[in-house]
């Protein structure tokens, strides 16, 4: 038997800044050539584990380690961050911040430059790796001119240029749209087979990562390893949903059909699993897709023209109607105008011509501040919005600036805080909140102004299944109780399939689709144009030759997220 590449024995780790250990008694091995997924909800310790592997612990994050941990038979703790980086390349979650060069070429060259290699040799290596990742034509481009997928490929080339044999990915799907995510997974799979790499992927989105044909899944929860086995074994054990992770959608479907998945071989691969004898049971799950019940027009966008530069119009005669009380999703690939549209609605941008009518009145003459009273906008990054130091102050600030009386402020803020379960924390400093709590806080501070329409930009980005479920519960509550119209800009397929009632597909400023998410996902052409990806339910339906897969999708959404 070959020696393990990574060998952890009873490793416990505590950050100096914390009272309790973050990792408890971890023991596992990873062998050369394996592709391993380390899955876990937020706070499960998976990022800490990654930092132990690449040397950021203890160099950048000091703490106490006990137990033994080796890489290639050598003690990891004896080696410097630099030594480790020659053996293990890390692709960070934020491919934009990871991009340190002024151009693609310089970013790929960065590690070799730091090794003080001769320039001629660096140039050969850069052109070789750029070609392999399809970046050959883009060597002179700045990061601002690249898509998320291209940035991530640059990052991969930038670590593989070392010819290291171990590649570590920190949430590679987090900053990509579904199509780019699927392409990245295929790329990882291909690289690994071609170059005999060992790959460790840290992720919580199981459905997508399984496409990369991982050999093994290690499930973490609260700093401990709770399961370690082949994807099939892990899925059969049902341990994912017990630990705050979403099972792949087709597995959820099979479970709902009461199929005993422990008896089915190759259950982890939707492209290979054989469930044809259960076709009938699966088909019986079909549920008619609920139609849009909201018919009162609330926001009318009329013949809107807009361009950043005169020569390149983005929106031309854009026209759509948003109805009172609906939950609307806006999808489309990056740079196609989704965010621009929300900026036009909130007054951040002014259209060249056309009109935006709210309840029959034009809003174009209103300032950003005035418009925010009616149309609330929650940015993707909560740090862009938070200006105060405590939870209460943050939520109250919008009301104070609108000269609302003190008693009313107290009442309104407390009401909103109760709605989002932050009331007990209202005196907490914001710095003590988690990312998910900050996100909810920014929603609260917009909601307190009682807007009729709430626009959310990627509300689920960077949140695991549990947090997403909580957020959705809360959103459907306000949609139901306050009749707030909700507009969500998203790439998140689960959010789209399970929560949104109507979707607008915008590509290059054109409205190319206006339909229910279920029908959108059943339409391959639209899916591709929007840079989305069909979910595994649609793949399974196609393999079983089941028509109207959207009706199957409706089956796993039967539980209303909020029960009034």
């Amino acid at each position: 038997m070959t020696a393990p590449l990574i060998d952890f024995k009873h490793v416990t780790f505590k950050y100096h800044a914390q009272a309790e250990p973050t990792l408890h008694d971890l023991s596992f091995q990873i062998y050369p050539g394996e592709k391993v997924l380390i899955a876990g909800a937020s706070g499960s310790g998976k990022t800490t584990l990654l930092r132990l592997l690449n040397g950021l612990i203890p160099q950048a994050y000091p703490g106490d380690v006990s137990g033994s941990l080796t890489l290639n038979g050598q003690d990891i703790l004896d080696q410097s961050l630099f030594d480790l980086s020659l053996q293990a390349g890390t692709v960070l979650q934020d491919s934009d911040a990871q991009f340190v060069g002024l151009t693609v070429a310089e970013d790929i060259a960065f590690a070799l430059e730091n090794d003080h290699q001769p320039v001629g040799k660096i140039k050969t290596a850069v052109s070789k790796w750029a070609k392999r990742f399809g970046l050959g034509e883009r060597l002179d481009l700045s990061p601002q001119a690249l898509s998320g997928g291209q940035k991530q490929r640059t990052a991969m080339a930038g670590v593989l240029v070392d010819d290291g044999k171990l590649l570590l990915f920190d949430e590679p799907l987090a900053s990509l749209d579904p199509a780019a995510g699927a392409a990245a997974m295929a790329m990882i799979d291909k690289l690994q087979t071609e170059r005999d790499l060992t790959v460790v992927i840290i992720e919580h989105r199981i459905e997508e990562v399984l496409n990369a044909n991982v050999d093994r899944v290690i499930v973490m929860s609260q700093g401990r390893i709770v399961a370690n086995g082949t994807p099939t074994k892990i899925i059969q054990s049902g341990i994912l949903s017990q630990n705050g992770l979403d099972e792949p959608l087709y597995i959820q479907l099979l479970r709902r059909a009461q199929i005993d998945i422990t008896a089915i071989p190759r259950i982890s691969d939707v492209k290979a699993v054989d469930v044809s004898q259960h076709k009938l049971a699966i088909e019986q799950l079909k549920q008619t897709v609920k139609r849009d019940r909201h018919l009162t027009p609330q926001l009318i966008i009329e013949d809107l023209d807009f361009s950043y530069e005169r020569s390149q119009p983005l929106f031309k005669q854009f026209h759509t109607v948003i109805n009172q009380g609906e939950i609307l999703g806006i999808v489309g690939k990056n740079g196609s105008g989704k965010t621009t549209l929300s900026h036009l609605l909130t007054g951040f941008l002014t259209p060249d011509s056309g009109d935006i009518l709210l309840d029959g009145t034009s809003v174009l003459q209103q300032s950003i501040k005035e418009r925010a009273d009616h149309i609330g906008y929650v940015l993707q990054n909560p740090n862009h919005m938070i200006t105060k130091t405590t939870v209460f102050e943050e939520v109250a600030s919008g009301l104070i600036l609108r000269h609302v009386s003190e008693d009313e402020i107290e009442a309104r803020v407390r009401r909103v805080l109760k709605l989002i379960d932050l009331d007990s924390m209202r005196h907490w400093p914001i710095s003590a909140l988690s990312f998910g709590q900050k996100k909810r806080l920014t929603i609260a501070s917009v909601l307190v102004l009682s807007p009729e329409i709430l626009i959310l930009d990627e509300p689920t980005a960077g949140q695991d299944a549990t947090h997403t479920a909580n957020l959705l519960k809360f959103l459907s509550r306000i949609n139901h109780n306050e009749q707030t119209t909700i507009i969500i800009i998203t790439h998140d397929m689960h959010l789209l399939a399970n929560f949104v009632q109507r979707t607008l597909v915008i590509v290059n400023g054109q409205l190319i689709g206006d339909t229910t998410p279920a029908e959108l996902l059943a339409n391959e052409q639209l899916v591709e144009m929007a840079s989305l990806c069909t979910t595994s339910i649609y793949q399974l339906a196609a393999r079983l030759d089941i028509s109207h897969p959207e009706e199957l999708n409706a089956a796993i959404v039967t539980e209303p997220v909020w029960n009034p």
Partner: protein
Amino acid sequence: MNNLFGYKKRNTWLNHTTGTSKLVGFLLLTTMGMISYDTRFLFALGLFAVILMQTAQIKYREYAVMLKLVLIFAVINLVMIAVLAPQYGTQLYGTRHVVFGSGYWSITQEQLFYEFNLLLKYLFSLPLAIILLFTTNPSEFSAGLNKIGVPYKIAYAFSITLRYIPDVQSDYHTINLAQQARGYEISKKASLKNRAKGAVQIILPLVFTSLDRIETISQAMELRRFGRQKQRSWYQEQSFSIRDVCMFIGSLIIVGIGVALLIHNGGRLYNPFK
């Protein structure tokens, strides 16, 4: 390409010269020009710099803003000298030819001549600086700094700043709009005081976002061994060629002329009043 400082790919010999030689040439010429007060030398140097700028194919509109800023600054500087030390020219040249006025505040030919020399210094160094910035790839500029002895960690800071300025600008823009939506009036409708108050609200989130970013960047850099060796190589560095040798020799010849004039004049001043 990142062209915050006007760098553009232009196919001229100045673009093909290495950043190091341009930097050295720039330093040699400006140092000599700053030392010398010989009007003939400064004038010739200015003419030379303008001709160089022509060969670099830099258009007027590309540097118009820079030129205006420098001219405004130069004028302010000259006026301040005239106000604070109106007799400095007389002291320097040892003679006194009054043009008009009397006593301490009189304007002398010597003072005017001295300030004319100062103006020439601005006028020759600006084109040289423009050439350096506009024809040198920012990363190559860092490489040049490193080559002449600036530690690479400091030289690299120049590149990394250029890399992230557009990101910080866009963060600033987003935060600004988000705060306006919250109710801080920063638009022209509000009073100056309220706008200032609103602007302060942008700083805190901007600092937090930037700190997050810095943490990730420094990790990304360390994970790719930035700081491991005493030296690093530079991808954008061009190889030395005959052009670079010419640039060295050319700069040295000009410095030589300057030094010869220093000796001939018996000091830094060229004195037409004697």
